[in-house]
């Protein structure tokens, strides 16, 4: 079992990195939305699925993967804005269970709608020609497209960090997650901020979806398992923590990858084992207490 070459292990760590990147994108969105609005968004997995399908549609219309990659997350983001404005907003001030139930119901509606519109069989998306094939990393041949996924995620996470840390809107978002009453008292219309954050979170899920599409295909149920694992990432990282989402996303990606390598039967349980362990040692997650950005 342990007669494994160093090259294979390095390749294994690299595959874990890509898995982690998708988790990171999903978890950041979930975590941002929860951190600011205390809404547990169960429809997040469906937004991920929509990202892949919108990507498929846009690819068909434009013939360009790059157009699809740019506009599919945007479309999911706009969809998220509308969901926040018309479905979730009426529920503010009520029990936190209400938005949870609403988004859970919404996720069922979206999965069924995807089946009705795009069929019960999945669709395939092809990566653009420039990203097809594999690159020699020295220790292994690695699919070019997967390297691209890593690069896009890094760019997006850095951009988001700069946005939250260096812009006025970012400042308001951070303040709003700490003390919404005080921010409102200062005359800031938090409802618009909430809508914006929900839109950004949804767009990130959509981005994860279109990025995952060429690797995994698009199908109606693709978000169902991802949402559970993404929640694990958010819990491990600490609810509301951006840094936590990034670190925990990568951690869970590597855990899945390495357990698949050494003990494949345990691969789908291992993530929950990690979560249990983290919760025992740090009940609020790895970076949970420190707030949204720290």
């Amino acid at each position, binding site marked *: 079992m342990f007669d*494994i*070459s160093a*090259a*294979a*292990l390095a*390749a*294994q760590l690299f*595959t*874990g990195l*890509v*898995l982690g990147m998708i988790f990171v994108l999903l978890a950041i969105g979930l975590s941002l939305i929860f951190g600011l609005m205390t809404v547990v968004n169960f429809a997040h997995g469906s937004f991920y699925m929509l990202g892949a399908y919108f990507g498929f*549609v846009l690819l068909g219309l434009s013939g360009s993967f790059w157009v699809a990659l740019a506009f599919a997350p945007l479309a999911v983001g706009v969809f998220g804005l509308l969901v926040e404005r018309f479905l979730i907003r009426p529920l503010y001030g009520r029990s936190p269970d209400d938005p949870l139930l609403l988004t859970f119901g919404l996720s069922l509606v979206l999965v069924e*709608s995807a*089946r*009705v*519109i795009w069929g*019960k*069989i*999945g*669709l*395939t998306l*092809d990566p653009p020609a420039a990203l097809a094939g*594999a690159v020699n990393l020295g220790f*292994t*041949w*690695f*699919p070019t*497209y*997967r390297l691209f996924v890593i690069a896009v995620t890094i760019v997006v996470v850095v951009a988001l960090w700069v946005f939250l840390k260096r812009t006025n809107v970012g400042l308001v978002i951070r303040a709003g997650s700490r003390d919404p009453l005080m921010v409102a008292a200062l005359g800031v219309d938090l409802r618009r901020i909430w809508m914006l954050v929900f839109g950004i979170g949804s767009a990130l899920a959509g981005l994860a979806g279109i990025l*995952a599409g*060429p*690797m*995994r*295909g698009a*199908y109606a*149920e*693709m978000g169902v*398992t991802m949402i559970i694992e993404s929640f694990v990432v958010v819990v491990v990282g600490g609810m509301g923590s951006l840094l936590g989402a990034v670190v925990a996303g990568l951690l869970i990606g590597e855990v*899945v*990858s390495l357990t*698949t*390598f050494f003990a*494949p*039967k345990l*691969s*789908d349980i291992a993530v929950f084992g990690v979560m249990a362990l983290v919760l025992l040692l740090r009940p609020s997650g790895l970076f949970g207490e420190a707030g949204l950005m720290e």
Partner: protein
Amino acid sequence: MQRRTFLKTATVGAATLAFPSIVRAQGGDTIKIGFPGPTTGPFGALAKDQQQGAIVAVEEINAKGGVLGRKLEVLFRDDELKPAVGAQRTKELIENEKCEFIVGGLAAHVQMAINEQTKAAKKLFISVSQSDEITAKPDLGPLTFHEALNPTITSRAVGGWISQNLGKKWWILYADYAWGKQNTAVLSEGLKKQGGTLLGSTPYPLGNPEFSAHLPRIIDAKPEVLVTMTPGADNIAFLKQAISFGMKKQMKIAQPLHWLPQLKQGGPDLYSDIYAGISFTWQLEDSIPEAKNYVQLYRKKYNEPPGDYGAYAYSAIHEVARGITLAKAVNSDAVASALLANPTYNHYKGKQWWRTCDHKAFQDLWIVKGRERAKMKGDWDFLDVVQKVPASESLDRTCGEKGVA
């Protein structure tokens, strides 16, 4: 998508769910055959092919005047791929709709639930999808018949061919549930008998779309053949990822079965050079007259060629009709006895027969290989037929091994 189009699609979808499709023949007193199947859910495309195969058979039979002067009628019900729902629908078909015969079922565990109901009601059931248990103790009933291949036959036939033709150093990757495990067991045993080496076998959770974490280890082990049990949508995801890691060039990839809906979805870019077994492919129309008849009827009605699961249903409906004609009675017991007394038949792909001790249908299967895009003639020409594996009772467990001798 425009709102109007969406509403239209949504309404049609809702209507389909609300009113299960019923093929009603003209005239009064029809012979009813109940047909449960998972029209919604991950096997929806295969279930649709089954229904269409059944409809083609019924229309063909009725066009020739029906059976004993009466028309056949098939009643489809959605079992949602759930055993409890399958049992309930079957009970309703028998008790409310007065179906004397049941044909259908798609997943092994739903078949068992349907079979329990038909056994209790003493009705003939012809199962039309893969299962080892259905023709073994304790599931086999006096009126249970199994038209499809089963994992043992498929994996013995395909595995034997692979080890003789593609290589004897294997890695097996399988979905961690009954079908995947059964095939893995049969394949490993067969490989051992051939003197081959199993370098490793890895399970993965069914429905998992991400295989990349499995691949470095398999690549590192350098097997000659990678055999996979990755059903449904998993098959597409797996092949996409394996190919992106360059594995198609490093080893042969094979699987027990190809499925037409997946071939259509993945296309030749994924499936070229992927080996598998298959119980029927429409290209057999070139060499088998009965296949030509079925494929033509199906194409005329649905504008596309039939798949393998539709063909099982087509054949099973014909068997019900043949049994009624032989028995001269619309009665499950009489039909079962008549079929076992005249076990040989040929509806769509050459000679088949029922083994009397376990009611298993023996039939030819074929080794096929995905075709390259450049060689395809038309949209559906995905497969090259490599070799026929002739029907043989030695490919299945004996009735003694099944406990039904």
